[in-house]
């Protein structure tokens, strides 16, 4: 400990900025890790909190995915002897049109009896907060709002609030106010309660419920009751504790975690090289100090420990900074994820509180410190190996660890071989992920050798550019590959990360564009909500007949989409008139015969699944799918697989008739309209709005608007990716600054000699600039290559473990070209500071010893 105070602290104090830069990689790696996961967890936590608040004392819930189920289920549930209270619920997310208030979650409940289950806090002691329960029930425009919401909006008892309904915007009367706390605090108070039958009418739900909430008799065994209810209701209805709703949400959030993990890993890797680099240089710089310590009786172990502890402290410090930063950025990310999920899944969820899980922080801290210790290992070993005699002799540099280069090269080649072997070894995750790791490690280990080799290639070019300075700079690189290779490796990793992230974004965008061209080709979409991902409102099927009457419409496809639970994961069920779809839509068929499969599906003989469903659930053509419907188990055959990007968890397409038979649901979310040749989109749209706009809630979106929306959602999805790219570039730049600063400080004397023998200041300056540029170029070259490998692997990971998207390998040349000036510019800029300090410093001082 004393050694740390006496030896390390003065050094750190002297090189504060450099030490901070060194830990930058760790800081950012830990920050990304903590930030992303905390955000994820917070959104999840908020979601669970809301579920809890809405659930009240509900012990079990009966649901059928998103499809809802017939009312009769309620009586079956109520007939179960374990059940004390069973109440039906409908949920809908509705726009209020009030500025800045966002959506309102409307809960339709049975006001005659539900109150024992949920704490509405209506029966407060002073006053019944529902003015008149009979009036409330008798009038379908009655709603209860939370006190919070009323205060924010200035609304009062018996005031009016306009909400969107199936029959267009409609005024509702506030006939009750919930006191704050309990249910009313869910969704930050953006919650309204109305009568369930009124809600069925207002949201076009027919005679269906979304949920039945159950409280059991006191002392009843929840698990046993759950099993009995499940048997009673059959497999199509899920009987779960309310908390399990969070699990479905978790599946959605998981994708973000995966991508966050990869980025954090890379950032930590980059951090590893930065630390390695700084410590290697520090060991060189502190050789004489080490020599003195050894002469004074320090053992090799003490020296090694000193450096390891230093790197550990650097790691700890960086990790702590990273933790703080991570928690800070988590709030922003949480907001981002919330709004994305709101758009994509219609779950309006605000994370009010962002709090980090201590276990997560522990893991992050461990990762940061461990990375740093690994990075410090080799420098610490060479510090211990410093020969005190040579270290104490003036002007003699010790060439350290010769031969290590060869060992490294051999290790790299072995890893490369193994990595390639893994690609061919099969598709087991073990092989796959080890292959990934090995390839990356191999490239990193080869970096010093590659640096020398590429520097030799660059030398003539540099010499041609600036005969004197170019040659000097190139020689400096060649003589000290150890010094540069760390930076180059860090830079290459950043570049590879950017290439990977950019590549996957590019590929996704292109594939989605192609899919939109083939699948989303109707001229107009008639929907019941402003966004196609909202399914709170639905049309009756018969509405299609009225729509068909409108002049200019040639063909109309009624589509009902709903999430159902398949083996615990929510997937998208699309029911439609398949025959018509087959004629109009030309999605890429991956398995199965186009002609026969659609014909069979339209006869209800099976389903077509999306490619990502097939990959994620490991299902192929010919397999039997077991789908749970409210009326029982539907065993149906997979007749084909198509490329479809409707849903991240996968899509099942079936014929409308089959869906109606099993789900007893005749509603429609979207009508896809194809126009007659010559009919103009805007004319038909206007006609539709004129004819139905006043009496029915409907939105007409053009093909272009739908495309724009999907691109926007995709853009949002990759939004966080861009943040990660930014982080990667930032770390890379910090890396260059760090290395150059250190390397210039290390060579002060050498540069001084250069000036003493007559080099002009400009020549010295240019030498350093050239060196910086060369480092940037080396990093870019190796990074582009590593990026190619990395992209291959993350596309594979995306395919097999994340989204099941079969993305084509498309090297993001545009991004690579953009990186060129960015990285070279950054290199040049970061060389400027050190170059100035090199030429500004006193010559005498530079030439002096110690």
């Amino acid at each position, binding site marked *: 400990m004393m050694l740390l105070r*006496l030896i390390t602290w*003065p050094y750190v104090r002297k090189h504060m900025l450099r030490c901070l830069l060194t830990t930058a990689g760790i800081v950012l790696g830990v920050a990304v890790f903590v930030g992303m996961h905390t955000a994820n967890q917070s959104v999840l936590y908020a979601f669970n909190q809301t579920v809890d608040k809405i659930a009240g004392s509900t012990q079990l819930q009966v649901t059928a995915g998103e499809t809802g189920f017939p009312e009769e289920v309620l009586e079956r549930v109520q007939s179960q002897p374990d059940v004390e209270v069973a109440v039906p619920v409908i949920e809908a997310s509705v726009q209020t049109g009030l500025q800045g208030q966002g959506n309102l979650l409307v809960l339709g409940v049975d006001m005659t009896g539900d109150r024992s289950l949920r704490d509405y806090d209506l029966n407060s002691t002073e006053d019944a907060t529902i003015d008149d329960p009979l009036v409330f029930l008798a009038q379908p425009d009655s709603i209860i709002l939370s006190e919070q919401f009323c205060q924010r909006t200035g609304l009062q008892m018996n005031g009016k609030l306009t909400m969107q309904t199936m029959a267009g915007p409609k005024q509702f009367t506030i006939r009750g106010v919930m006191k704050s706390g309990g249910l009313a605090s869910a969704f930050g108070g953006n919650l309204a309660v109305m009568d369930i039958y009124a809600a069925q009418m207002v949201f076009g739900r027919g005679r269906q419920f979304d949920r039945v909430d159950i409280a059991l008799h006191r002392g009843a065994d929840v698990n046993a009751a759950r099993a009995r209810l499940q048997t009673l209701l059959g497999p199509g209805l899920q009987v779960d504790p309310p908390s399990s709703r969070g699990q479905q949400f978790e599946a959605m959030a998981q994708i973000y975690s995966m991508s966050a993990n990869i980025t954090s890993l890379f950032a930590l890797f980059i951090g590893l090289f930065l630390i390695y680099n700084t410590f290697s240089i520090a060991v060189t710089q502190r050789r004489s100090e080490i020599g003195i310590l050894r*002469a004074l*009786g*320090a053992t090799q172990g003490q020296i090694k420990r000193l450096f390891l502890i230093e790197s550990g402290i650097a790691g700890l410090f960086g990790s702590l900074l990273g933790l703080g930063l991570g928690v800070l950025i988590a709030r922003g990310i949480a907001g981002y994820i919330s709004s994305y999920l709101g758009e994509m899944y219609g779950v309006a969820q605000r994370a009010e509180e962002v709090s980090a899980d201590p276990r997560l922080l522990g893991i992050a801290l461990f990762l940061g410190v461990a990375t740093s210790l690994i990075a410090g290992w080799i420098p610490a070993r060479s510090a211990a190996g410093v020969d005190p005699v040579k270290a104490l002799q003036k002007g003699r540099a010790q060439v350290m660890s010769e031969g290590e280069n060869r060992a490294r090269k051999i290790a790299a080649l072995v890893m490369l071989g193994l990595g390639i072997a893994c690609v061919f070894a099969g598709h087991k995750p073990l092989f796959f992920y080890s292959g990934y790791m090995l390839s990356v490690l191999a490239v990193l280990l080869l970096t010093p050798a590659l640096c020398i080799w590429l520097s030799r290639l660059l030398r003539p070019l540099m010499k041609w550019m600036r005969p004197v300075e170019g040659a000097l700079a190139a020689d400096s690189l060649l003589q000290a590959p150890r010094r540069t290779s760390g930076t180059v490796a860090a830079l290459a990793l950043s570049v590879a990360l950017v290439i990977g992230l950019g590549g996957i974004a590019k590929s996704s965008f292109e594939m989605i564009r192609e899919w939109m061209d083939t699948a989303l080709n109707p001229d107009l979409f008639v929907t019941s909500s402003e966004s196609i991902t909202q399914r709170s409102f639905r049309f009756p099927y018969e509405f299609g007949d009225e729509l068909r009457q409108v002049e200019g419409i040639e063909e109309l496809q009624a589509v009902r989409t709903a999430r159902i639970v398949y083996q615990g994961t929510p997937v998208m069920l699309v029911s439609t008139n398949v025959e018509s779809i087959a004629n109009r839509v030309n999605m890429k068929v991956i398995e199965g015969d186009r002609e026969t499969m659609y014909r069979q599906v339209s006869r209800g003989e099976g389903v077509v699944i999306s490619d990502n469903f097939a990959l994620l659930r490991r299902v192929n053509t010919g397999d039997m799918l077991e789908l749970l419907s409210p009326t029982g188990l539907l065993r149906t055959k997979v007749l084909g697989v198509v490329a479809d990007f409707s849903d991240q968890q996968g899509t099942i397409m079936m014929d409308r008739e089959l869906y109606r038979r099993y789900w007893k649901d005749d509603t429609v979310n979207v009508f896809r309209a194809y126009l007659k040749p010559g009919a103009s989109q805007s004319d038909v749209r206007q006609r539709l709005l004129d004819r139905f706009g006043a009496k029915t809630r409907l939105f007409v979106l053009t093909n272009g608007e739908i495309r724009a929306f999907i691109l926007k959602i995709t853009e949002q999805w990759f939004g966080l990716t861009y943040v990660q790219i930014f982080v990667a570039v930032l770390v890379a730049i910090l890396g260059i600054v760090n290395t150059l600063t250190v390397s210039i400080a290390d060579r002060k004397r050498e540069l001084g000699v250069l000036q003493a023998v007559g080099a002009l200041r400009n020549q010295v300056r240019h030498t350093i600039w050239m060196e910086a540029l060369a480092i940037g170029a080396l990093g870019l070259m190796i990074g582009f290559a590593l990026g190619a490998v990395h992209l291959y692997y993350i596309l594979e990971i995306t395919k097999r473990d994340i989204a099941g998207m079969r993305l084509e390998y498309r090297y993001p040349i545009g991004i690579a070209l953009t990186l060129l000036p960015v990285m070279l510019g950054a290199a040049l800029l970061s060389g400027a500071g050190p170059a100035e300090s090199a030429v500004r410093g006193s010559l005498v001082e530079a030439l002096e010893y110690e």
Partner: protein
Amino acid sequence: MILITHLQKLFDGKSRVRALDDVNLHIRKGEMVSLVGPSGSGKSTLLNLIGTLDKPTGGEITLDGQRLSGLTDDQLTQVRRDKIGFIFQFFNLLPSLSCEENVSLPLHLRGWGRKQARDRAIELLDLVGLGKRVEHLPDELSGGERQRVAIARALSVYPPVLLADEPTGNLDTTTGADILGLVRDVHERLGATVLLVTHDRSVAESCPRTITLRDGHVVDDTVRAASR
């Protein structure tokens, strides 16, 4: 105290250099010996070998009855820690540490407590006449003062053997004489065995015994009857 038999040290470079060849010496406990010879004669090498900083290619050094050959690096460090004090021509003080911290550094390496180490360091600084400079940084001191600090540091554990490599080489004549006086003083007061490498004829002659090296061989070993 120090018994050297057939000591040999070769350096492998572009051509092989025999730094020391078949050196045999016996230095008794409490002796003060000067080591002279031209540059490259092997003086410093011999000092480094005795100080366990380096390992011989052949022969044997016995230090205080302990044979050094066959010892591991850690064991050699242990010997150095307990028995050797080094004084260098360029002082080799750590510029960022105060006098007291420089002197107590070896004690910390041995795991001494902070208070204990500080007390000893102050005691030693008093001994070398720098009692008032405890908190100063080396940069604030003159050359002679720096060397005093270095001597205090070398004495920190009262080692039986003190090795000085041109302790006056970087100092003017007057200061050099002062430092030499101090070394002699320490030698007499503490009874340490002192081995002193020097270029300076007068410094060498002020020691009771002078060994002359040339091309890695002992060419002369003079013992004077009386010192001074």
